[in-house]
Every structure is written in C-alpha cells, then in structure tokens.
C-alpha cells in the first residue's frame, strides 16, 4: 500500500543500554590489549634491530625508551602484556568448561584486572629498585 510506514516495532536493546558487566569489559579489553601488543611488536623490532646494528643505533633507541614518553609506552606495553596473558589463562580455563558460574565468571574477570595491574607494578618497582632503572 502506498504511504504505509513501517510499523514501529520494539528494537532489541543494544550495547549502550546495558550496564557493562566485568566479564564484558574484560572481553573487549582482551581484544584491545591484543591490538596494542600487535603494534608494540614494532617497538620490540626496533629494540632488537638497534641492538644488532651497534652502539649508535642502540643509543638512539635508548634516548627514546628512557624518555618519559618512552617509559609510558613501555609501562603500557607491560600492562597490556600481563593483561592479555592473564586474560588468556582465563580463556584457557573457560576452554575446559570450568569457571562459568556467575560468581566464578566475576571472580576470574576481577582477577585478570587486578592481577595485571599488580604484576605490572611489581615488575616496574623491582626493575627500578633492584635491576635497571634510569642509569
């Protein structure tokens, strides 16, 4: 029929309507950290090629990575690495069919987030206090 408008059907609720539950947040963070680590391999390649090229190239890399900006990137890289690693372990647990009860899901997701932050801080504190640091 001419001039008939499509009836206004209720639409199914989309992402923006939900409160973000923790496992959902961890799921997207897993993908985001994975993408970040993908880009981060450029930094690893630069580091290794500089080390293989000689003192001058390594000093150039050092100037970058020892700057505040470089250190921030490296800090983020460490966090992304740990977050993705712990998220991966969570997925491996889920792959066995365990850990799907509501409280277990919540607990595993929280452990991913807190564990990644904790490990990152521990590594940086140890790195600065006992091993390397800005020398």
């Amino acid at each position: 029929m001419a001039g008939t408008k499509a009836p206004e059907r209720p639409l199914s609720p989309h992402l923006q309507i939900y409160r973000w539950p923790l496992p959902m947040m961890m799921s997207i963070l897993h993908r985001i950290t994975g993408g970040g680590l993908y880009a981060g391999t450029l930094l690893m390649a630069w580091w290794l090629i500089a080390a293989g090229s000689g003192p001058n190239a390594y000093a150039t890399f050092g100037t970058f990575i020892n700057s505040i900006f470089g250190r921030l990137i490296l800090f983020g890289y460490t966090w992304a690495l740990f977050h993705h690693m712990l998220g991966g372990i969570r997925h491996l647990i889920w792959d066995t069919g365990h850990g799907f009860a509501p409280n277990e899901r919540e607990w595993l997701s929280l452990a991913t987030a807190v564990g990644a932050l904790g490990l990152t801080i521990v590594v940086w504190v140890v790195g600065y206090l006992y091993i390397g640091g800005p020398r």
Partner: protein
Amino acid sequence: MTEHRTPLARVRGLGTAKSGTEDFWHTRVTAVALVPLTIGFVLLVVSLLGRNHAAAQQILGTPLVAIMMLLFIGMSIYHMWLGMQEIIVDYVHDEFWKVVVLMANTFFCITIALACAFAIFKLSFGV
C-alpha cells in the same frame, strides 16, 4: 555421471571440513607456550632497562636467551597473526578490503618476525 560417494566423503577436503578448528587450536597451543615465554621476555627487558649496548649485545647473544627470544618471537607473532585475522574477519565485511587487510596482516607479521629473528641471529653469531 552418478555420484557414488557419501555426502560426508564429498564434503571432506572442501571448505572448512576437517580443518575449521585449526586456527582456534593453534591460538590455544601458542597461548600456552606464551605464558612462560612472556614471563621470561619481561624479565629480560627489565634486566636490560637502561643498560648500554655492550650489555644488551652480550645478554641477547647468550644461547639460552637467544633461543628463548626466538621462541617468543615465533610463538607471539604466529599468535598475533591469528588474532588479528580474527579481528579483521569480525569487522571488515567488504570482500575486497577484507582480502587486502588480511594480506597486510600477513606481510606485517612475516616482516616483523623475520626482522626480529635476524637481529637475534646477528647478535648471536656476530658481524
């Protein structure tokens, strides 16, 4: 000509039959390998923070460190190649661009892996 094979026999070797879970499984195998390798990699990076070239050259050229790094490079870059492929097929729906981006992913991963591995070999064997 009459087809005498069963439907299962016909579908085998076609499409994703039999090999559809390969990427899924390889992601898991590399993930398991990457847990200890990642810890080793982080410890290595921390131990080299702020050190000069001579120290980096010496430590990265040590056989055990070099082998660990080669394993880390191989496993992580295969893992991320699979992961990025999954992201691409999730978000890029245009057939032409999907193929282009999938190719770019492959080229990027092979280049990075080769460059990193080459650097490790050079540090190990000199000159």
